[in-house]
């Protein structure tokens, strides 16, 4: 009995706040109503069809795909470059690491409130210094064509230093001989990174990309604080859409259906990450 009793406390919370709500949300997405439970009209896949008809939802889905792509790739690339640059430890390197990592520790809402000022038209940090080199009049958060990219900038700033840590750990665990051999063969620095280091860090890249993707899907605090999905839904992301449907429009049918879609999104990614981890275990042993 002992093992089951030991698992029980954790399982109770997993069941109550992960598995039960998952079942609930799938069930509730087949009904229309204002709250879960009070929803009485059975509509089968009606809510999903309504989602497909909803330009805001399709926009949020597309924005999320853009957001994932253009935050994950740049922040991983930067994190990797930072790690390469700071591979040797020393006092200066340690200070640089700490400064680059620091944004990770900030609450996303605190970073967002700083960046509202940074993006402020005219007197904000970016415009103030851009004006000195003759660039004027960029409305970072107010321009529908720019707003999503501005929010991505904040996300990249906040996460690159975090991913740097994983690459630093990966670099330190690499066997030294391969790189030395390449050096003796006369490979340049770029060649050594491209042909030796990056292939050997494959598992680290896979692992970090999974974390980065999940982070991109589940964090929408900055959207709530900076743009509320606007202007004109330009920064609406999936999870923000769910939040909006549930708490502004009280459309629980759409909210639950959108949650299921978001979950499916994450599950596809979790399959990927399971595979990654299995591969990693083999790699280690």
């Amino acid at each position, binding site marked *: 009995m002992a093992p089951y009793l030991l698992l029980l406390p954790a399982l109770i919370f997993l069941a109550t706040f992960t598995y039960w709500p*998952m079942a609930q949300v799938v069930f509730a997405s087949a009904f229309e109503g204002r709250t879960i439970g009070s929803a009485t009209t059975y509509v089968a896949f009606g809510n999903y069809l309504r989602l497909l008809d909803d330009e805001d939802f399709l926009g949020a889905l597309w924005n999320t795909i853009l957001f994932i792509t253009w935050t994950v790739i740049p922040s991983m690339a930067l994190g990797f470059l930072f790690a390469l640059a700071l591979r040797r430890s020393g006092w200066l390197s340690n200070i640089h690491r700490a400064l680059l990592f620091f944004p990770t520790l900030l609450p996303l809402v605190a970073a967002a409130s700083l960046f509202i000022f940074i993006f*402020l038209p005219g007197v904000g940090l970016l415009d103030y210094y851009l004006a000195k080199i003759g660039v004027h009049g960029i409305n970072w958060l107010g321009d529908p064509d720019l707003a999503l990219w501005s929010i991505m900038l904040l996300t990249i700033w906040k996460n690159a230093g975090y991913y740097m840590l994983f690459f630093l750990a990966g670099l330190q665990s690499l066997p030294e001989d391969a790189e030395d051999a390449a050096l003796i063969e006369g490979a340049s620095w770029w060649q050594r990174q491209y042909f030796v280091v990056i292939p050997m860090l494959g598992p680290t890249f896979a692992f970090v990309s999974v974390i980065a993707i999940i982070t991109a899907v589940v964090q929408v605090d900055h959207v709530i604080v900076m743009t509320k999905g606007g202007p004109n839904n330009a920064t609406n992301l999936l999870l923000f859409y769910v*939040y909006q449907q549930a708490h502004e429009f009280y459309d629980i049918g759409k909210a639950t259906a959108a949650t299921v879609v978001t979950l499916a999104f994450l599950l596809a990614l979790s399959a990927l990450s399971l595979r990654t981890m299995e591969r990693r275990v083999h790699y280690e042993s």
Partner: protein
Amino acid sequence: MKAEVAATEAAAAPVSTAKATLRPWPALAAALFAAVVFLWSAPILWMLLASTRPESFGSLDMARLLPDTIPTTDQFNYAIQDGDWIIWFLNSFILVTGTLIVQLVTISLAGYAFARMEFRGKEILFYVFLFQLMLAPPVLIVPNLTTLVHLGLYDTLIGVMAPYWGSAFGTFLMRQTFRSIPRDFEEAAVIDGASWRQILWLVLLPLARPGIIAFSIVSVVFHWNEYLWPLMVLNSPENMVLTVGLVSFALGAEGASDWGLIAAGTLLVVAPLAVAFVAFQRQFVNSFMSTGIK
């Protein structure tokens, strides 16, 4: 979570001494990189400067990144008068401690079972935990809020904590930590007739300190910083936590274009973790390397 613990171990390993990695930087590249790091730190630097400028400072030059005034605490004084900071701090403190304490109990027990016991259904149960790792709780905000209402936990700090009390990530971290402890330590205790309770409490947990510390740092940082979930659960002003308070505070100050005040408020929220980070930099870095999924 083998991978994550491996990362922690790698962090502690001695720095590579390969010739290929030991080449010094060309001066130009070093200067260029320092410039990038400066650019990266500019938002933080601005926060420090803006929050210590006197109230009379013109808003036109608010963005300037030069220390051009004698630092004052004006902005902090106004910020403290403007918000219920003491209540917010206290609630955030209760939130992170309450979350962590229960987590430590549940993950130690479950981690121990997975690390040291054989039982039927172990593999399936393992996947039950693993699965949760991928389903970040924020996605389930809508149904979880309904559950909290039914349980009478809406608008309570316990309601904010409860969904995190069974942490799959923590369970894996503890499992890995326990597995890295040689069995010899327990065998002596078993021969002496110790029960699993005694083995866990007296032998394994003291040896699992690095794992416990790593999990604690990550958990505290995550819950101190979380916004969306407490925003949805909490309603009354006396239950507000720092992140939610900061946003309402900043929105008010934004209307007045009082950026120095916002910077000061932001700094207040960030300060405890920042101070801890400066003091225990190595611990923080190692812990975060072990996280992967929060």
